[in-house]
């Protein structure tokens, strides 16, 4: 008790001190005149061509940022009222931490040049040459993706993780886990240079963003163990219903909306009219996965299970994220239908294995993230290149591309799982040794809102099934 509050006090002090140091350092950096002459911070080159690309990328980035409340509402809706304040705070703070950390160091590691295919080494704090409109634009794009990866985890570890631990985790993921893997695939790192097909490709991040989030979440859920009451005495799983289907549905609609930015914006170029196909594919896969999840649930449970349909929508979106630019509409439907089924099976599997994922994040983002990576190895139809309208085009097995691309994708599946689960496990385990990541049983029963934040989410309402 005493020890813990000491640790807490130290964490806060360190936090405040760091902020101060940061401030001073920032001021000092400015003093030495950080603006480089090679860079263009003013944005002089604004032709119509540049302008339309900027507009496209920025608007899509705004949409991606808007996925944050989507995740927040979905997670809150699928968890209990007594933890809603906590979930809001976690979802807010991972975006906050991600924004600052990725700006200060994440982008440099991910995109600041390349050191042996492993990571980047320049652009800290976006000073000097990096104070440039193009670089800022690119940084912003990568930042909103980073924050998406970070926020996925909060669902898998919901209702039992200390806020402090989540805070630290979100620094680690934004500074290290996401940027390094991102460098491997999108920053010119080794995975992108695999000698099969066009190297491992991942159009908008089924792997880089979603599988990373999903498997770090798996690690977190495993270190934490299941919530109190999730399994009965015989180890049989019990449903713990979320407190608002309306919030969950709102969250999914927001995600679906934001995902159009996520996927079509990933051309980072409005001149690739392929963006229309990408938007359509995104929509079709989401619809197909919702449908298959709903129908499978109806078949298994005799009810039109709304929660599964909502999970299905996100599963379809995750799965189409990697292949969205490289497939036709019919293939998007096929990818989605399969994603809905995979998600359903994965949820049941994890539940049976004793892994408690309150919102289904691991199945939706992890499992379907892998499926997304693989699927383009089958369905890519050879009409679009690697963020380019020019050949070489990405071609999969079904369109005569042979198995090469599939192989590259398969390798990247293994790597993303190993990297995300490994670093995630380490992070949570180390924290657990240091100060214990799990809230006390009494606090868990009472809900995290009051012990951690002092503030119940719904003080005017009479609530009942609190436990």
């Amino acid at each position, binding site marked *: 008790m005493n020890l813990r509050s000491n640790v807490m006090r130290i964490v806060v002090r360190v936090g405040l001190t760091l902020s101060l140091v940061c401030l001073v350092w920032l001021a000092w950096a400015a003093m030495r005149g950080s603006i480089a002459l090679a860079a263009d911070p003013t944005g002089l080159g604004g032709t119509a061509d540049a302008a339309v690309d900027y507009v496209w990328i920025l608007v899509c980035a705004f949409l991606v940022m808007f996925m944050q409340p989507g995740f927040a509402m979905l997670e809150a809706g699928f968890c209990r009222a007594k933890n809603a304040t906590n979930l809001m705070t976690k979802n807010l703070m991972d975006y906050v931490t991600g924004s600052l950390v990725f700006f200060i160091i994440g982008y440099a590691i991910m995109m600041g040049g390349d050191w042996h295919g492993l990571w980047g080494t320049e652009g800290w704090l976006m000073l000097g040459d990096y104070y440039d409109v193009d670089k800022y634009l690119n940084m912003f794009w990568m930042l909103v993706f980073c924050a998406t990866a970070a926020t996925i985890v909060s669902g898998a570890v919901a209702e039992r993780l200390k806020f402090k631990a989540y805070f630290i985790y979100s620094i680690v993921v934004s500074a290290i886990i996401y940027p390094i893997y991102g460098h491997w695939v999108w920053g010119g790192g080794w995975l992108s240079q695999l000698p099969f097909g066009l190297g491992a490709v991942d159009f908008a991040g089924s792997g880089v963003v979603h599988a990373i989030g999903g498997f770090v979440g798996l690690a977190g859920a495993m270190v934490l163990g299941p919530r109190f009451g999730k399994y009965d005495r015989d180890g049989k799983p019990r*449903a713990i*219903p*979320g407190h608002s289907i309306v919030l969950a549905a709102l969250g999914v609609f927001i995600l679906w909306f934001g995902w159009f930015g996520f996927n079509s914006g990933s051309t980072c170029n409005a001149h690739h009219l392929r963006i229309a196909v990408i938007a359509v594919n995104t929509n079709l896969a989401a619809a197909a996965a919702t449908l298959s999840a709903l129908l499978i649930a109806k078949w298994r449970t005799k009810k039109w299970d709304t929660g*599964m349909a909502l*999970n299905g929508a996100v599963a379809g979106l995750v799965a189409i994220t990697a292949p969205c630019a490289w497939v036709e509409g019919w293939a998007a439907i096929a990818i989605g239908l399969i994603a809905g089924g995979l998600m359903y099976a994965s949820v*049941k599997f994890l539940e049976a294995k004793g892994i408690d994922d309150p919102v289904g994040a691991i199945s939706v983002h992890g499992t379907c993230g892998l499926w997304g990576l693989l699927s383009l190895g089958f369905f890519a139809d050879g009409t679009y290149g690697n963020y380019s309208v020019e050949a070489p085009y990405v071609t999969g097995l079904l369109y005569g591309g042979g198995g090469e691309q599939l192989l590259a994708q398969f390798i990247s599946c293994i790597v993303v799982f190993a990297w995300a689960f490994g670093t995630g496990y380490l992070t949570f385990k180390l924290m657990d040794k240091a100060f214990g990541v799990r809230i006390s049983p009494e606090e868990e029963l009472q809900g995290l809102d009051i012990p951690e934040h002092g503030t119940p989410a719904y003080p005017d309402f009479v609530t*009942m099934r609190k436990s």
Partner: protein
Amino acid sequence: MKKIEAIIRIEKFEEVKDALKKAGYPGMTKTPVEGHGKQKGLKEQFRGTTFEVEFPPKIKLEIVARDSEVNQIVDTIVTSARTGEVGDGKIFIYPVESVIRVRTGEKGEEAL
């Protein structure tokens, strides 16, 4: 005076209320409760997994009435609240010592 405490189905509340209205509409207090008796829990599901609601929601009606009215009120409730299936509810009768009307300070049966 007695207090009649009836635990009834939510769906039956409107019907019971209408029946009591016809029978003179005594003052009453309504509380949302959850409970179980002989009735087994209800099945609900969430994200594909079913669970049992061990305490299905009910409505509790409390009516404080003159001794002479008790039987009639109880009968009215029993008739209008019944479906014949387990879960129809229970009625409990308790003794009451006194009643006071806040508005006037009146005491006893006149205060009802």
